[in-house]
Each structure stands twice: as C-alpha cells, then as structure tokens.
C-alpha cells in the first residue's frame, strides 16, 4: 500500500518536471529565433530529445508519446538524420540489470517511432544502463530525469 503511494508520487513528479521543462523550452524557443529549423538544436529545443520512464518500467507513457510524436513528425521532415536512441536508468538498480533495462527503454522508444512511420533502418539503439547519469544526483528528481531514452541525431 505504502509502495503504491510512493510510486504515484514519483509519477506525479515526473509529469510536473516534464511539463515545466516543456514550457521552459517553448518560452526559450519563443524568445530566441536564432535556432535554425532542421538543426540538432532545433530538435532538442523545439521537439524534445528525451522521454522519461517510471521506476523499473520501460512503457512509454502519455507524456513520452507526445514527445515521440513530435520527434516522428520532425524526423519525417528532415529525413537526412539517423538516430541512435540511448537508453538510461537511475542508479537504484544493479549494473548488469540496468544495462538490460536501458536496452528495453531504448527499444520501446524505437518501436514507437517505427509505429509512427520512421524506417527501422534509421533508428539504432544503445544502452548505457546507469553509467551516464544526466543530471548527476542522488534524489528522486535526479532519478526521474535519469530514467530516460534520448534520441541522438547523426
């Protein structure tokens, strides 16, 4: 019972964090007109390069689907890019398991993008487990940001 409560709290935090960062991005985009459409900076700022996951989960949530929908739209428009989807985990799991979990998350994002019409050949995956935290930190907020799949453009 207590565990479920804690989970909801974490999920709520993710949502809030994601919302606030999105509006930050939109404000930033509105303020700066220097970002070239179709550039990596454009993708990161105006589309969002990452989606977030609940603890020990690899299911893309509503917020994540919205981000991936924007990514798919953008990638169709700018079809010269290849994408490596990097799967990551928070530090609250063991190293080897987290490598597997990161792979699952990257694959979940990849499957979703394929479902949105991006050719599979453009989408590679790599897992970093808990080896590359961003941000570095040991609190719930940092862990929520670290349970992520990041679409890196090439």
């Amino acid at each position, binding site marked *: 019972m207590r565990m479920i409560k804690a989970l909801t709290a974490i999920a709520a935090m993710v949502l809030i964090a994601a919302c606030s960062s999105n509006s930050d991005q939109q404000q930033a985009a509105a303020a700066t007109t220097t970002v070239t459409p179709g550039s990596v900076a454009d993708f990161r700022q105006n589309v969002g390069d990452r989606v977030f996951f609940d603890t020990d989960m690899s299911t893309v949530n509503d917020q994540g689907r919205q981000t991936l929908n924007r990514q798919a739209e953008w990638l169709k428009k700018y079809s010269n890019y290849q994408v490596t989807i990097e799967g990551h985990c928070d530090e609250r799991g063991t190293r*080897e*398991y987290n490598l*597997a979990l990161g*792979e699952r998350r990257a694959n979940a994002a990849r499957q979703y993008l394929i479902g949105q019409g991006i050719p599979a050949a453009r989408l590679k995956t*790599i*897992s970093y487990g808990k080896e*590359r935290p961003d941000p*570095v*930190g*040991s609190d719930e907020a940092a862990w929520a940001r670290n349970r992520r799949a990041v679409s890196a453009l090439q």
Partner: protein
Amino acid sequence: MKLPRRLTMMGGVALAAGTTMPARAQLTIDMTRPSFEPVPIAIVDFKGDAVGAQMAGVIRNDLQNSGLFRVIPPGSYIQQNVDATAPPQFPSWRQVGAAGLVVGQVASSGGNIKVDFRLWDVVVGQQATGLSFTSQPSNWRRLAHIIADAIYKRVTGEEGYFDTRVAYVSESGPGNNRTKRIAIMDQDGANNRYITDGRTIALTPRFSPTLQEIVYMAYGENNTPPRVYLQNVDSGRRELLGNFPGMSFAPRFSPDGTKVVMSISADGNSDLYEMDVRGRQLRRLTNTPAIDTSPCYSNDGSQIVFNSDRGGAQQLYVMSAGGGGERRISFGEGRYATPVWSPRGDFIAFTKISSGGFGIGVMRPDGSGERMLSSGFLVEGPTWAPNGRVLMFFRGQPSGAGRAGAVTIHQVDITGRFERQVPTPTDASDPAWSPLIPQ
C-alpha cells in the same frame, strides 16, 4: 601490465622440528562460533635479507585484515634477535600476550631466494607449522602471501585467500562522463595495473580459473554498443567473444574455464547464452520476454544461478547448466540481483534492493537461510574469496551537486563481521576475486 611469471617453487617443504602438535585451543579459531577473540600473534621481521622485514609487513597486514588475528606490534617484543631455527624464549612471548609467533629467514640461493618460516605455538611451546620455499627474488610478495595463507590454514582449519588477485573497474573523472577501465591488483591492493586504456567504458571483469585470461564488457569506439571481450592478461591480446548484432554483457567463466555464460540482447530483450571458448559455438539457455542476466555457474559447473524479472520484479533463479529446469529461489521482500555461487558450494551471495536501500546477503542454493552481511545507500556486486569464507563488494555514496559519490571496494566475512575498505588507487567498483594463484 605484465603480471609476474608463474611462481617457480621448489618448495612447500615441511620443516620438521620435533613433532607437530595437534590443534590447541589458544592457537586455533573456530569461525563458525558466533563470537571469538582474534588470535594474538607476533611476527618478527625475517632475517638474512632486507626484504625479510617487508615480507613480515605483508604477512602482518594480511592476517590483521582478516579480522581473525590481532598482530602484536613489533615495538613491544621483548626477545630481540630471534633465531629462525631454534625454539624461541617462550616465556617472553607469553609475557607480550602472543599465542603464536612467526619467525623466518631469507637466504640467496643461486639467483633465487630461499625462505624458511616457522609458526610457534607459544602456549604449548611447540612448533605448529613450518615451510621452506625457493623462488625468484621478484616473487617476495607472493611468498609472503603464501606464508600468510599457511598460517591462516593452520589456525583456522580453512584454506587461505591471501595469494590472490582482484580485477575491478577503476573509476575517475566527472560524474556525467566517468572513465571506467579494468584494473587488476593483488588482494591487498599492491601491484595495481590497468588492463584497458579507458577510451571506452569497460565493466564487469571476471577471471578465468587459471588467471591467465579475463572476460569483460566494453563499449566500442564512437559509442557503439557494448560487447563481451576475452583478454589475455599477460600479452594484452584481446578477442571479441560477443560478436553479435546486439549488446552482449554480464560474462562469466565456467569453473573449468571451457565456457563463458553471458547475456545477449535482441530487439530490447536479454536472454542467457553459453559459449564454448575454444570452438565459439553458441548455445541458447533461456528464451523469455523477461530480462535474464547476471548468470553464475555453481562451483561444480552443473547449474547456473541468474536474475530475471519474468515474475514481475527481479528475482533469483537456478537452472541446469545446459538450460531448463528453472526454479525461483528468492522469496523475500524486495528485488534480488547479482547472484554469485560460493566456490565451496554452500551459499549464493546476492545484492538485495528494498525500500530501505541496498544490501549484500547470502542464502543457501535452495533459497533458505537468507542472511544479510552489509547494507547502505548503494552496495552491490558481491564476489567470493576462493575459500568461500570472505567476500568483497562495492559501496557507493550518494552523488551531490554534479559530483559523483565516492565508490569503494569493501571486504566482509561470511558472518558479516570485519567489514573493511580495500585500498585502491582510484574510485573502484565491481570487484572480481580470483582463485588462488596457481603455484
């Protein structure tokens, strides 16, 4: 980089001085008892060569760190100039509180060194054990560890673990871009050397039974997915073992060294496979939509323990080494991970993740008798000493303000006593304890 050559020993010759007495209470220790006093022991600098004092220092350090001995400081010794061959003045050693006295002598012998040592039972006034070794001078540290092992065995009745090495992941650099490279050191932290260059992340080193090779996982150049490599420790020559489209990881040798079990990912899913090291044939062991990883053979090679989330959360399962007959063995509260079978077969060590944090524990292979040995914000990745009485694991501190928390290797005995940090030149994680070095 190059490890010392195999020890050439014309030795292990028992030194007979009178009769060897049967075990006496004062110079023996029963580790299975819930509590005991460490054995007070005096170790005199070995005579005959400058290296003798250094050897005595290594032996003192080994025994003291085991938690089972209390080394009496050399400054308090009454009898000076102890003859390495004649019986010591027992009353003076009883007076400083010693139950055991170690004396030794080093001599040159045709380009080699010859080392004699004796352990005296001070309580009964008899020799307890004595051995003679001949080897190359560069092997002096190993000889000291071998002598410490002989003392440990005589006093505890268990095999020693001091003449061993530890492979681990050396960590340095900023928290969001840590350099992680494989290193190997002696069990006591000496002779540290790097096995990978740190250009890409390398993790999870494991020794072959001969210590000649290690397997580990490393990322490719330009952030290509990690794969399992086999590397000769002396020559540095490395081969790609996990040559598959997806990530391969979590490798571990079979006890006879002929096979490596590992996880391979395909379409986001990780299953277990076994590879024949010589012929490179691959055999699939599990086929589930779950994460199956962290496999480890039983000491006799007949079974494999691993962790899987097939039942929802991460739990421990045992199956036969060829796959099949899978059964869950962990049923406590929380998630269970990184199972490692004891070299003597009686326990499986694991990492446990529960609401309170991380713990290191042991259970019997059927899952009964679970007992926690250590806990903390992050403790992970137990590995066994070859005698199955002592473990190492790693401990991480929380990160803060963009800085990575310290990561250190720790040692603890199977009852949870005598936890201590193992010295390493850098932050260190993922220790893998070697078998005894072949003599």
